[in-house]
Each structure stands twice: as C-alpha cells, then as structure tokens.
C-alpha cells in the first residue's frame, strides 16, 4: 500500500466536487421539509434533472443552459408531486416513492438518444492571482461555478430561514399549518413554492453528476444519491450548516475511500464502498441525538376548511 500517492490538496478539492450533488439536493429538500412537506421523490427529481440537464446542454452546447434545464426538469417533475399531495391530498410518502420510480423510468426514456454522447465541458473558475495561490488556490478558487452555487445556496437558505419574514412564515407553515392558516397565511401556496424550489435544487444536483462528475449519461446514474440527501436532512436536524457538514463529510469519505482503493488498502472493496454511508450517518446521528427538531407538521396533509 502506498499512502504517499494520496495528495491532501487534491483530496480536499475533489471532496468539494463529490459533495456538491448531495448538497444541492439536500438543501432543496431541507426547505421542502421546513415547510412541512415530506417529498421522498428526491432521487426521481435528481435523475430527471440529470437527463434534462444533459439533453439541454448537448442540444444548446452550453453547460449553463443545461443547469437551467435541469432545474426546470426537476421542478417540473415536482409539479406532479404538488398535484398529488396539495390538490388531491394524497399521502406524501406514497406520492414521493412513486415520484422516484416515475422519475427513473422517465429519465431512461428521455435518455435513450443520449447514451454515449459527451456533454460540452464546463469551465472552471480561473481567477488570475487567486487560483494560482499554492494549496488555497487549488482548494478554494479553481472549481466549476456550481460548487460555489451550492455553497451560496446553503448560506442563502440559512439566512432566509433565520433572518427574513419569508423564512419565518415558511417555518410557521411547517410547524403548525392549522395555526398558520388561521392567521391568514396561504399554506398551500407556500408549500407549492417550497416543493418547486426543492425540485429545482434536486434537478441541478442531478445535472451536476451527468454534466460534470461523470460526465456522460447512464441509466440510473444518480445511484441512490437522492436517498442519502434525504437522510442527510433528517440527521442534520433540519439545519443548513449541518447539511453542509454532512455533505462534505460524505464527499470526503467517498473520495478518501476511492484513494485508499487505488492505494491498494488490504480491506475488501465492499467495506470501503459502504464506509461513506456508514460514517456520515453515524456522525450525524450522534450529533442529533439530543433533540430531533423536526417540523411538527412534517408529512401531514393540510386540508383547509372553508
């Protein structure tokens, strides 16, 4: 085994890349759940975003347009969830699960034409002085734009929930939808907006995989990332900062175990592959053990009496 082959600077830089899809999906789902809606369709919205983004990027030749398309695709699929849970008042768990299954099928259908295609390459940030700094430059200033978008979203969501009236109303709706309704807030409208936001974020997370991480289109390529994002939100106690921490932890262990595999560590590969899931969840469970902090109306159907 040769540990010297592992370059710590590259390791940190690539963990940020590995964490970005989960981070995007999880921060979207956090907003959805804060509004009191449990959307288990994250995986389906991610894979739909992945293929929509891929298709748009290939057709237009612009990765940026690809991400816009991915957000639209994810949000579009979440509209189905909106129709089921907010209008037909269907059970959220069942609707979310079927959304995932539907998304997987739909993406495979759209993706038939794109197997084997290559997406246009995305540009990395290249700041004249900063990116050339040793260590820091490589870690902080030479990623693609979406890494920064993900980080900015986390900060924006945190600030929105903590400091703005919109955030307060969103939390109130998730906490007690009957009381929010009695005070005259539009519970359904607020939830729909949150679900669409969650869909758009999940879609961009998916596209990050198909456009930048892999980059090509493979059926079912999100491979359970959406489920990890869901778990992350719960174990992060619905706190944006902890979602970031969890996502980077997950990304870090993923990258590290890949490096260890390459270095020829004498542990069966399967154990290494499962380690990111295990370690991330273990750490977050320990952190969130004292108080859950779940929105009190989470997953409950709201029916306004006239």
């Amino acid at each position, binding site marked *: 085994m040769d540990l010297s082959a592992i370059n710590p600077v590259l390791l940190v830089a690539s963990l940020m890349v590995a964490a970005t899809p989960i981070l995007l999906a999880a921060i979207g789902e956090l907003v959805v759940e804060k509004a009191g809606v449990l959307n288990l369709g994250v995986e389906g919205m991610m894979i739909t975003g992945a293929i929509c983004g891929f298709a748009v990027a290939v057709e237009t030749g612009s990765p940026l347009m690809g991400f816009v398309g991915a957000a639209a695709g994810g949000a579009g699929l979440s509209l189905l969830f909106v129709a089921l849970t907010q209008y037909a008042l269907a059970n959220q768990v069942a609707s979310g699960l079927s959304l995932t299954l539907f998304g997987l099928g739909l993406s495979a259908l759209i993706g038939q034409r794109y197997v084997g295609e290559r997406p246009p390459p995305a540009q990395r940030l290249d700041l004249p002085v900063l990116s050339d700094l040793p260590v820091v430059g490589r870690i902080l200033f030479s990623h693609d734009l979406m890494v920064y978008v993900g980080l900015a979203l986390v900060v924006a969501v945190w600030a929105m929930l903590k400091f703005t*009236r919109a955030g307060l109303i969103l*939390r109130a709706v998730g*906490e*007690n939808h009957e009381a*929010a309704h*009695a005070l*005259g807030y539009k519970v359904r409208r607020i939830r729909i907006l949150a679900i669409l936001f969650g869909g758009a974020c999940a879609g961009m997370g998916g596209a990050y995989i198909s456009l930048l991480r892999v980059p090509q289109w493979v059926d079912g390529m999100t491979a359970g990332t959406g489920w990890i994002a869901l778990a992350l939100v719960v174990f992060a106690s619905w706190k944006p900062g902890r979602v970031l921490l969890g996502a980077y932890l997950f990304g870090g262990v993923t990258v590290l175990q890949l490096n260890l595999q390459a270095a020829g560590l004498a542990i069966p590969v399967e154990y290494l592959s499962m380690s990111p899931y295990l370690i991330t969840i273990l750490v977050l469970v320990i952190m969130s053990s004292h108080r859950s*902090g779940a929105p009190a109306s989470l997953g409950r159907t709201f029916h306004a009496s*006239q």
Partner: protein
Amino acid sequence: MSQSLLSIRGLTKAYPGVVANDDVSFEIGKGEVHALLGENGAGKSTLVKMIYGLVKPDAGEMVLDGRSYVPAEPSMARQLGVAMVFQHFSLFDALNVAENIALGMENPPRPRDLAGRIREVSELYGLPLDPFRTVGDLSAGERQRVEIVRCLLQDPKLLIMDEPTSVLTPQEVEILFRTLMKLRDEGTAILYISHKLEEIRALCDGATILRLGKKVGTCVPKETTARAMAEMMVGSELHTPSREAKAPGAVRLALKGLSVKSPGEFGTSLKGISLEVRAGEVLGLAGVAGNGQDELLGALSGEILSAPAMVEFDGTPVGGMGPMARRRLGLLTGPEERLGHAAAPDMSLTENALLTGAERRGLMSNGFLKWGKARSFAEEVIARFDVRTPGPEVAARALSGGNLQKFVIGREVMQNPQVLVVNQPTWGVDAAAAATIRQAILDLAAGGTAVIVISQDLDELMEISDRFAALNEGRLSDIRPAQGLTVDEIGLMMGGSHGMEVAHV
C-alpha cells in the same frame, strides 16, 4: 357605548348538509363587551370566522365604523382593526414568543424593536412575557398572554376572544378580566365567546344568543341569571345532575408516590403523586392544561408504565401492567383527546366499541371477533347516551365532538368499571350533553365504582366531586373535601396566578 362599531346584518353561511349561520344580525358598540352565547354547533365559531375574514359569508353584510366591511382574508381584517384570540391557540411551539407575535402582525417592526415593544405592552397590561422564550415551554396561561399581546400590539378596535378562560386558573381569569376592562375603557370593543355564564355575567354588557345557527334572543347578562341564559341557549329546561349522599366504601385504587417521566418533549413529568379513591366516591382533579393531566391518565391506563407498587388496584400492584391487563381487572380510563386517542377516527363506532370493550363485554372468543355482539353493544351505548348518529356503522370522525364524547364516555361507563378515570369528560360538549355525562358518572359512583374525574372545568368538579385536589406542574395538592371550598382556595391549589400581575395603569 352609544356609537355602533360593528353591525352585522343577515349573515348566512351554509355548508353541505348544515346551515351554520342563518340570517344573524347584531351590533357591537364602541367600548362594549358583547357576549356570543350558544351550545356546541350553534354557529358561534363560524360567525367569528366570518368577521375575521377566514370564512366568506353566503349572504348578508357587515358595517365597520360606518363603512361596508368585506374582509377577504385575515390580514385585511387585521389592517382594519379586528384582532382575534383563538380557542385552540394559534401558536407555533417550536418558535419563540417574538416570532409568534411577528407572525400575527401585518407590518412587524424589526426583531429587536419588536422585543422591546412586547416587553413594554406586556408589562403595561400586567402580562409579563420574555420575547425570547420558546412557546412550547410556556404554560397555558402564558401562551394565552402571547396571543393577547399579539392582538394588543396592533391597537385593535375590535378584539374577538373565543373561549379565552377555559385554560386559566381563577386568579388568571381575574387578571385577564381587568386587562379586558382596561381595554374597554380605552374604547376597544370586545366580542367574547364563552361557555362560562357566570363569567359573562361579570364581564359583558350585552349578549346575543345563537341556537342551531339562528339568533334566538338577546339579553343584558348582568340582569339575567346564568340558568336563564343556559335555557335560552338550549331552548328547554336544564336538568341538573343529582345524587344521593352515601358513605364511601373500601379503597379501590391507591397511588403511592407515583413519579414518571413524561414521554413527550413538551410534557410534564409526574412527581410523587399519592392518593386513594374509595368505592362510591368521586375524586375531582383540577389543574390548568399541561400540568400533568395527560401523563396521570397515561400512568393509570397503563400507557405509561411505572414501578409496580406505585399504582395499587384493590391492594394488588399494577404499575407494571399494560392497558389490557388493567382493563381485565376493571380499571377503565377515558382520555381527553377524543379523535385519535379515545377513538380511532376512521373506524366505525362498532369497531371503536370493540377496541376497548372486547375484554369486559366478551366481544371476542379465541381471538375471533363477535361482530353481532359488538354491534349491539355499540347500539346500547348510542341509545343510552343519546348519541346522534345514523347508526353504529358510521366512522367516529363523522360525529360532532359532543356526540363522540358521549359515545366514548358511554362506552367505558357501560363496561361496569370497578375504577373509572376520565380526563375532561365534557370538554367542548354542550350543556345538555354535559349534564347526561355527569349524571352517568354520578350513577356509576352510586353503584359502587370509584371514579377519578380530571377536568379544567371547576364548576363541573364542584358539582360532582366528593373530594377535590389540583395538579400543578406534575405535583398533587392536598386532597380536600369538595364541599365548602372557595374559588380562591381552589385557585391557590392550582398554582395561583403563575406570575401574572394586575395591569399597571
């Protein structure tokens, strides 16, 4: 008082199958405290929801301050000076006081200024509040303060209060009344809904009485007796529960230093509760909501297990037994929450009757259900307790609160309990139905059952209890004979005024 603030003309609202309000008209003057009276389902809540813009009337008009008033939504009502304190608090447990108040305001000031204003207003009216405490940790009285302060911060012209005193100690009620009097003197009109007629006599200048959605009369409460008002609400003569005095028998149920931790995050743990109930006796337990009532009921029903010796039934330790084992012995319980705790909402009345009655009524043999017997048991309960329902196949959810309450209490009463524990047996039930339930409890005691009634309705407890005690923060006060207790003494047993003070101005 001479000038009219809000006048309501011919308001009508119909729901499929029921007319909630039928051509209701009345007026509220500036600085008037006006009571709205009526049984459950008389249409009081619908009426105030229309005034607050939550429900749109089908017909009729409202005039506020001389201008036509058509509130499209609550925020518009608030802008025009109408504020409301809700029956079931419209508060958010996980948010703090300041955030809760900001949510109820149209244009809340910046958080820092808001905290200052909350302190200012709450102290001015003798309702001290810490803006940064989490609402879930507050007592019921404090939670209500949050609601009231939320309204006061908007300088309302009309304040609607839907059953504000049902969760307060007598001392807290008195302080609330002084706050309301002060508001009235400043010219604020108050529309006051309550079941407590003595309170209305003390506080209100005028009253409108609703029955089945129609206005049936008006009165000046100070010049009318509580009984006369109750009879106007019911539309017939009121039956007062009666009982014969009887010497109590042997001790059936004894709690010995019962201490259990609350399973809920915002619950109250029980701390060293000791009491005895004898055959043929009714023990009344008062207390403001959230002082350990649910936990006590859970510890008695077997939902919360304790050390075996802490709960003794006929001298046998049962603290470690589950609910079924206790039912078999004859220790039956009726929890407060009808839908979801006492009854499964989507199951039929027959199925609900089976759920608790299977054991003692022999509705089961070798694991198979006897549907015929279960159905006739449900029909018996329906007939004896006058439960208004098309039949026992109807889902529990479809019954009105009062009717379902009659059913779930009746279901326990008709299983021949040795010890019966009920929590809030007549909560949200109208006067006639409440009288039926109370009479059934008294009859049961007369037949030799030991009964514990946990309730927040002091009048009810005074009416039916032999002995009386109060729960306060999970502890039990001294147990005293109910006869001759004064309201002040009871209030002190319940924990006094929980730090409230009289308005400073």
